[in-house]
């Protein structure tokens, strides 16, 4: 690593950290998810945690809340307690004062503010288990005043803005902390679902909390917000702490550089420029989901990348071309013919395939054999002389297992017994055996280790070399910069840039995707 952790100007100098992490490592079945991480969380500090997908952010949070154990050797210090990193449990985390508000908030929209607050702490009850509503309302009123929630105890959450619901969730998480008490509040992507005009109100309330001495760990992909709100920023990459910096010392491109590091995965780098074949795809003013007026065209032999943050409309674009979503407007032509697929089966028949983003939900048949998973796309071709030819299915599947480097004892094992990367290779094999003309790949390497990643992109490149077109969506901009011939950047549903040649770097893609407009 080129960047060394350096202690930046403390927000509240001279005080002991509320929670400190020392030499924290975590290994999953051989993969290092975290390696020797040291972070201090100081009282009254808003500490942001940044890093790309797979950088170890969520693993760190889960260890802090005791959902996972770390490897032995590290420590988590809180107040006077020292907890061995392999002994973390939700109970130790709770005692250490760690509280979490997850992105989905886990609030009950149909219930009132008072009920939502009471459900976690337990109702105040009287004789015969009767709920003391008067007490309950009083407690809720206190919380409402402390956290400046724009509501009354009897207001149902459905009537509140999303920012106010987040405040209720925070109030609930901190209910047993006294005024100005220590402890660490972890907020996981709290603004991801908020409309723009509500973000400011939530950030203001977080600043008030910090001013009262609450220390906050803030996880977000929104870099502008992070730089605006946080006192210090810690950056993780590949499970290591790249550094902890004062937010005042960083600007956005500096932060992006920290997140990406300087290493580019050479294994993925595509040397030869793409063969430009005839034009295959022409998208004209497409509008679907979050997408507006999207137009582009692409040629046979190309790998076209789509960069964009979650919610930029990147998945809708692929799903619309696959007949899974119906566009509101615009047209798509493929090989000169209009692509107005009503159902994925029409797309498949026309030589279009899609590898969806969420493998478990949308692609894998986990309780079925690997052979079924890989042959379902061509199942009709195995119906020979009025019977399913199970022998041919098994033989062909075993061949595909070898050809695609799937690590499995045989093709008869259930899909669910394979690791994520191998499942993904099975999904790729399922489609590529049809020799598709257009490959729509949504995060094709999600949850896949580095070796398998290179395999998957080699498979994709092989398909395009024989005259197909691949459109790849990936959140990992380094990966995208390495594998794509050119990249279209989507922001808020529109194509804002096309990046090619020497411009095509992760840095450039990040700047364009994270830009404000």
């Amino acid at each position: 690593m080129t960047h060394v952790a350096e202690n930046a100007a403390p927000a509240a100098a001279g005080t002991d950290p509320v929670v400190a992490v020392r030499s924290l490592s975590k290994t999953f079945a051989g993969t290092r998810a975290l390696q020797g991480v040291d972070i201090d969380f100081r009282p009254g500090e808003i500490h942001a945690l940044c890093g790309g997908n797979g950088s170890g952010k969520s693993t760190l949070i889960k260890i802090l809340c005791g959902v996972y154990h770390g490897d032995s050797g590290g420590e988590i210090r809180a107040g006077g307690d020292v907890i061995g990193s392999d002994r973390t449990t939700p109970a130790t985390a709770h005692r250490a004062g760690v509280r979490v508000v997850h992105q989905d908030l886990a609030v009950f929209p149909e219930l009132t503010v008072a009920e939502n607050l009471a459900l976690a702490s337990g109702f105040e009850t009287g004789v015969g288990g009767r709920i003391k509503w008067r007490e309950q309302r009083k407690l809720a009123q206190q919380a409402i005043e402390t956290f400046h929630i724009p509501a009354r105890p009897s207001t149902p959450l459905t009537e509140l803005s999303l920012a106010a619901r987040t405040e209720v969730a925070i109030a609930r998480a901190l209910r047993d902390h006294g005024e100005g008490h220590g402890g660490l509040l972890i907020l996981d992507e709290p603004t991801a679902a908020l409309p723009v005009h509500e973000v400011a109100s939530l950030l203001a309330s977080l600043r008030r909390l910090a001013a009262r001495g609450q220390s906050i760990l803030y996880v977000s992909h929104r870099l502008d917000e992070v730089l605006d709100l946080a006192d210090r920023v810690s950056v993780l990459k590949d499970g290591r702490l790249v550094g902890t910096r004062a937010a005042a010392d960083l600007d956005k491109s500096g932060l992006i550089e920290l997140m990406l590091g300087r290493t580019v995965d050479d294994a993925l780098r595509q040397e030869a420029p793409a063969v430009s074949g005839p034009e295959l795809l022409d998208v004209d003013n497409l509008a679907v989901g979050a997408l507006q007026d999207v137009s582009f065209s692409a040629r046979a032999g190309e790998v076209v990348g789509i960069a964009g943050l979650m919610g930029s409309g990147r998945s809708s674009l692929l799903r619309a071309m696959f007949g899974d979503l119906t566009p509101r407007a615009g047209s798509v032509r493929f090989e000169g013919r209009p692509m107005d697929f009503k159902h994925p089966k029409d797309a498949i028949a026309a030589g279009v395939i899609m590898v969806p983003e969420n493998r478990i939900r949308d692609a894998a048949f986990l309780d079925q054999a690997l052979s079924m998973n890989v042959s379902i796309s061509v199942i009709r071709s195995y119906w020979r002389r009025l019977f399913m030819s199970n022998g041919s299915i098994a033989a062909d599947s075993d061949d595909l297992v070898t050809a695609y480097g799937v690590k499995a004892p045989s093709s008869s094992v259930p899909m669910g017994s394979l690791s994520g990367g191998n499942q993904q290779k099975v999904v790729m094999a399922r489609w590529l055996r049809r020799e598709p003309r257009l490959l729509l790949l949504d995060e094709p390497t999600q949850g896949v280790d580095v070796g398998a990643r290179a395999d998957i992109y080699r498979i994709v490149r092989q398909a395009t070399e024989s005259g197909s077109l691949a459109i790849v969506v990936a959140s990992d901009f380094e990966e995208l910069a390495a594998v794509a011939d050119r990249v279209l950047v989507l922001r808020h549903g529109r194509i804002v840039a096309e990046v090619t040649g020497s411009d095509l770097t992760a840095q450039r893609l990040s700047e364009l995707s994270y830009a404000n407009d």
Partner: protein
Amino acid sequence: MSHSTTERTPTGAAEATAPDRRRPAFNLVDVLERAGLPLFLVVLVVFFLVNSTSAEPFRSAPNVQNLLGNQSVTALVALAMVIPLVAGYFDLSVAAIAGLANVTAASVMATHGQSVTVGILVALVVGVAAGCVNALLVAGLKLNGFIATLGTYTLLGGFLQYYTEGTTILGVPQGFADWGSLKFLGLPRPFWLLMVIAVVIWYVLMHTPFGRKLEAIGSNEGAARLVGISVDRIVGLSFIGSALVASSAGVLLTSRQGGADPTSGPAYLFPALAAVFLGATAIRPGRYNVWGSIFGIFLIAVAINGFTFLGAASWVSSVFNGGALVAAVAISTLMGRARESRARRVLMSTSRDESPPGSAASSVPPVT
């Protein structure tokens, strides 16, 4: 299909480990899982044959004939239920559709004096029409299958009461009434009918693209759609096929009873349900299947029949059906968990370099 199935081989993906071509070795746990239910049936039969009190009446020809004949109707209702269940959809209305076909056949033959052929055809058509309504509700309007078919079940039961005014219809042609009591090659004809229909359903489920797609839907409906399966059409067809089998059960019931009783069809719901769940613990463990269901039917029937000869009162049948239902769910859930943890152990020992997959396969068939 226009596509070719020749494989494109990525030459780059080189460091692939060659799959072990040997089929999995003989595994005792696996065999016991698959054969547990049939073995238990054999044990029960032997027990009743050996026991001096039950042996004589249990093995008497009339008892065997009755057992095989009567249970054929229950088994057909159970098989009707299996078809949509493979796709994860409950069809509780099958018993009522059997009742509908039962009353329709008797009414056309006896009350309206039509021929046996016309009676059978009308009964099947009316039954299939009811299946089309189910298909429309569940596959078309996307209503919850369990609730919607519970609704049609209750509705049809009420309609049968209204139509028959609660009375039994008698007087179907003698030849038709005798058919269900006659034997062929030493076994009752209804049992042969059951075997033929069971083979057909097994063939459709296991050896046609339709059946394979149905199972894909049962495994993951969203993914099935994204691999190009017309989920709505296939689920709809499964309800219609289910109704056709249920109607044949109803027609057979008409022959067995020599008429129709508006309450007897709907009463098959729970015995059939218990058998289908028991069936999912055997032959293809964790999945609803044809032969497992048939073993389930006969297991419950033999137990009730044998214990009656040992002096058990009439409550024994409810106790057995209920007990079987609970036992079936318990066994399949526990076996599923054991299978899952076995799979996880294998995964942990084989993959060194990757994080665990999102979730292991759930082995109890998902039901919508």
